[in-house]
């Protein structure tokens, strides 16, 4: 007689079917994609966006649709917890069998079970996930982390059940008939263990879900993370959460991590409750399934049922249901095909202008001619003294940078070195009118100081000075002299060259997109006017240590002491003295005449006014190579540009003044909304990298690179617009001219490949992006 299915089992199977459906088809069912960040929501709303429009269940703090994230994250989440839970039960079962067969093993395993279960599993899981996080296999990492403590529960339960079965009369009968213990286990005990195993498995999977949620609450992500900063993309005040870590693996625990925070407790509760409900609902569903199996097979044998047509039918239904998720075409097949078509059209040394002509697009040439004084070769800074030679390395990340501004210039110098302490003469800084609102007046504080320039003769010598960051006198404190004051006063005293040691070497002078350091700012505000004069450099404190070592003076220690409140170096006594060292300095400066030839071609405008600009650097700002035009040409060959409304093609020549050149192109592009600018720079390397100050573009560009089949390094962080290096990058590439447009800089890095691989990858990436733009992808046109 056919047994009626237990209602708990029926309910459990129904819930499990829903979970399976979501796990395998969640990404197709999702109304949006997790790469779409709606940073600026409808007027009057703040991130996280509330449930309703445009997102049914609201958004997370980054403006991503929570329902989409739950659906897309289901596969990873359920795979992680399923593997973790089942592995715990499997290990517990194996050890329980071992413990039931051997008394010695049992004693040891009992003690070990006591040991591992005596420290809370959350703490152990956090520690192990942190330890194993770099392994790059989140599912295995998490399963491994939970396995360390999780096997003890199933072990105890199954061992006591095996003990009970061992003393059952049917076991004694089987033994008397000579059945060996493996056969006894598989044929006689296993059918009795099915209910306990099912219950235990469901409990362990639910426990793994809870552990995943706990890790999420603690902000410990499973798998790698990336830093998304949305500050640049924000218009007005829309949301408190403008930056933070986002899990690379879409899983529900990570959503809880983002959903915590004070505003999520008091106001925006959906950010926590939506993923929380998904976790809790799944845990309840899996538990019901386990209870159902346990109830249904309390007096029946699962193994008997496995051999029935009903089971075969159920298995076929499951397979037929799951297989299409692997076989059905990708969501964006057209875009992938377009990427493949562009990849096939790559030729080295292509002429994109000719292709634009043949495509019937009107080219607009933007030719600029400029002459400017600038550094024309690497600077040299070498010292020779009693302690041996010292050679410094040029660069923001190294020892020194030339300072090219109105009062300074280039030249070649070979002269003795003299150290003039802080480079302060009280008569250069007369006391000002004391403001009741100012903390202190610098001139007043140094009015009694010894004059650094009377103690040493700096004329014709290489002058080394330190920039005083802050001056404290009792409770009063004043900022040290500005770089321009310090350098101009020093140069006016006739040294052959000036070297200023600054503790803030390489740091930004202010805030704002494309900030520069104080010395670069000098050159921008007051450009160099003569090719020869007083070579001037700014040095790091570490470089200062090496130059001044012969006199036993260490700027690093002095600056650290001042930062800690030590006033012994700023007591008014001059630190100036001669240094028994000669310096050989070379700073080549000359007039550079540059002709730049850029080209702009516009496809017909879209009805909605959206535009995507494809910007190819020719030559590259980094190494002078010309890979980007080949990638753009490949794209142009694979599409009909006239039938691609909204696209703008730019061949950008950065020579001369890149910023001015880019501004001229911006004028040609005209007013109107530009959604995204894809800037392709050097393609000499072995993998693409992406840089942008717009954090909302990072998930999208990484996804595009993955789907277009490009070799790339995942973008781990958003570029900091306040860093001088970002300012340099934006000047060199011309991006500084359109900082208000969403931009992504694509460059290749790593060992240089000789084939067209990177050009093909960049071409495919452009092809994919264009196809998505034409399909109105919200991440490109929905902002």
């Amino acid at each position: 007689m056919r047994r009626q299915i237990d209602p708990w089992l029926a309910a459990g199977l129904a819930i499990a079917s829903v979970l399976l459906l979501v796990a395998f088809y969640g990404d197709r069912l999702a109304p949006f994609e997790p790469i779409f960040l709606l940073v600026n929501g409808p007027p009057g709303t703040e991130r996280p966006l509330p449930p309703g429009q445009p997102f049914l269940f609201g958004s997370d703090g980054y403006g991503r649709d929570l329902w989409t994230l739950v659906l897309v994250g289901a596969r990873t989440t359920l795979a992680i917890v399923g593997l973790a839970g089942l592995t715990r039960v499997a290990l517990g079962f194996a050890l329980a069998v071992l413990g039931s067969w051997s008394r010695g093993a049992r004693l040891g395993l009992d003690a070990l079970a006591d040991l591992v279960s005596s420290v809370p599993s959350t703490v152990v899981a956090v520690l192990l996930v942190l330890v194993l996080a770099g392994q790059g296999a989140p599912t295995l990492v998490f399963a491994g982390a939970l396995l360390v403590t999780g096997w003890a529960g199933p072990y105890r339960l199954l061992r006591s059940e095996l003990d009970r079965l061992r003393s059952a009369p049917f076991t004694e009968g089987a033994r008397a008939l000579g059945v060996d213990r493996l056969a006894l286990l598989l044929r006689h005990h296993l059918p009795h263990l099915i209910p306990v195993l099912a219950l235990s498995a469901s409990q362990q999977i639910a426990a793994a879900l809870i552990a995943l949620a706990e890790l999420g609450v603690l902000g410990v992500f499973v798998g790698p993370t990336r830093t998304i900063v949305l500050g640049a993309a924000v218009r007005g005040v829309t949301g408190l959460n403008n930056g933070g870590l986002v899990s690379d693996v879409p899983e529900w625990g990570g959503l809880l991590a983002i959903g915590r925070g004070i505003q999520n407790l008091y106001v925006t509760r959906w950010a926590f409750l939506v993923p929380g409900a998904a976790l809790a609902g799944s845990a309840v569903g899996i538990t019901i399934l386990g209870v159902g199996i346990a109830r249904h097979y309390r007096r029946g044998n699962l193994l008997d049922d496995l051999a029935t047509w009903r089971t075969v039918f159920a298995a076929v239904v499951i397979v037929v249901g799951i297989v299409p998720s692997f076989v059905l075409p990708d969501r964006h097949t057209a875009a992938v095909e377009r990427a493949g078509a562009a990849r096939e059209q790559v030729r080295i040394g292509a002429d994109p202008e000719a292709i634009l002509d043949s495509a019937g697009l009107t080219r607009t040439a933007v030719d600029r001619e400029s002459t400017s004084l600038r550094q024309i070769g690497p600077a040299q800074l070498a010292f020779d003294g009693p302690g041996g030679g010292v050679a410094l390395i040029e660069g923001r990340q190294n020892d020194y940078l030339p300072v090219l501004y109105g009062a300074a210039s280039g030249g070649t110098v070979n002269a003795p070195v003299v150290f003039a302490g802080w480079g302060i003469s009280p008569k250069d800084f007369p006391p000002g009118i004391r403001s009741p609102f100012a903390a202190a007046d610098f001139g007043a504080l140094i009015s009694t100081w010894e004059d650094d320039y009377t103690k040493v003769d700096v004329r014709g010598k290489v002058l080394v000075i330190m920039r005083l960051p802050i001056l404290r006198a009792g409770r009063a404190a004043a900022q040290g002299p500005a770089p321009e004051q310090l350098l101009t006063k020093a140069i006016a005293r006739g040294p052959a060259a000036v070297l200023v040691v600054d503790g803030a070497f390489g740091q930004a002078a202010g805030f704002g997109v494309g900030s520069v350091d104080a010395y670069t700012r000098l050159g921008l505000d007051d450009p160099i006017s003569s090719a020869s004069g007083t070579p001037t450099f700014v040095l790091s404190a570490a470089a200062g240590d090496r130059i001044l070592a012969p006199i036993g003076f260490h700027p690093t220690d002095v600056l650290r002491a001042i930062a800690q409140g030590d006033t012994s170096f700023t007591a008014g006594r001059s630190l100036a003295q001669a240094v028994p060292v000669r310096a050989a300095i070379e700073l080549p400066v000359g007039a550079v005449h540059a002709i730049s030839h850029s080209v702009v071609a516009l496809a017909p405008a879209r009805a909605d006014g959206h535009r995507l600009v494809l910007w190819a650097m020719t030559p590259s700002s980094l190494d002078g190579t010309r890979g980007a035009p080949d990638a753009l040409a490949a794209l142009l060959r694979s599409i009909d540009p006239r039938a691609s409304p909204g696209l703008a093609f730019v061949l950008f020549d950065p020579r001369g003044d890149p910023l001015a050149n880019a501004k001229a192109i911006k004028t040609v592009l005209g007013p109107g909304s530009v959604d995204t600018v894809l800037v392709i720079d050097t393609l000499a390397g072995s993998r693409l990298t992406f840089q942008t100050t717009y954090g909302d573009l990072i998930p999208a560009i990484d996804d595009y690179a993955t789907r277009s089949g490009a070799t790339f390094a995942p973008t781990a962080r958003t570029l900091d617009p306040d860093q001088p290096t970002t300012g340099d990058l934006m000047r060199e590439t011309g991006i500084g001219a359109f900082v208000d447009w969403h931009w992504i800089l694509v460059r290749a890095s790593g060992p240089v490949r000789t084939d067209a691989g990177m050009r093909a990858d960049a071409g495919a990436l452009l092809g994919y992006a264009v196809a998505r733009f034409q399909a109105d992808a919200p991440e490109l046109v929905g902002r």
Partner: protein
Amino acid sequence: LISVLARLARVPLTVAAVWAVLALAAPLAMSQYRPFVLARGIGSAPRPVSPFAIFSAPVQVPNVAETYKLPLFDVILEATLRSVVLLAGVAAFALTVGVLLGIVAALLRHRPAGSALILGTTSVIAAIPSFFLAYFLQIAIIFIGGAAGHSVLPVFGFGLDGHLVLPLLALAGPAVAMTAQLTAIRMGEVYDADFVNTANAKGLLPSWIVRVHILPHVLPVSFEAVGSGLRVSVASLPIVEYILQWNGIGLVALQAVALGDATAFAACGVVLAALFSFAGLLLDLRPRRIA
């Protein structure tokens, strides 16, 4: 006696073994990742001044003692006392409320709606993870406070006053539920036993029957349930303390992991193992009958 002594000896042995393992393994494990400062509590995740501070110059991460500006021994001692206060409250709460609920459910055992309501509610509470319970309680208190127009209870923080309520309820939920369920089942069995029927036939007062004839058979099971519930509470201690910012040993253990402070972590592990083993001891040494 030997059996009792062996069970008693398991506590220090387990604690010593945990200490040995952590002392050896924790420094090795903690050298494998970059320490960080754990954002405290669901309600107080601090926002950096600049979001870019996350990847700017590496921040010097202090150890646990520097974080609390106290010697490590004092930090562990204070945290242990706070957690013990919490767990003692959980035990007392579970024993009183859980047993009372169990008795009521047993008395209503012939009224399916009544007993199902109690057992169903306790089943749901037992199934909800403690940290969800903590979060839901926080939201409920905020709602109630909003409706009342004034703060009803503090929703996070430490204090042996109103602050105690939420962590106590969040941690005691599973213990109360387990105690109520097991007490109800056992009491139902005992209620239907022959000697209770005899006592009823003799005309003894119902309160006398419960107090003298039934409870001695039921309370050992209730104690066992409290022991099991306490083990669950100790396991949930870190996450609940973290969410509700109760500076107990669980929170200090999580901070020690984040800060990479192996010494503090080993100390917390030892304390947690001792608490866990003590709860287990309560289970092992329960009397068969309480007169």
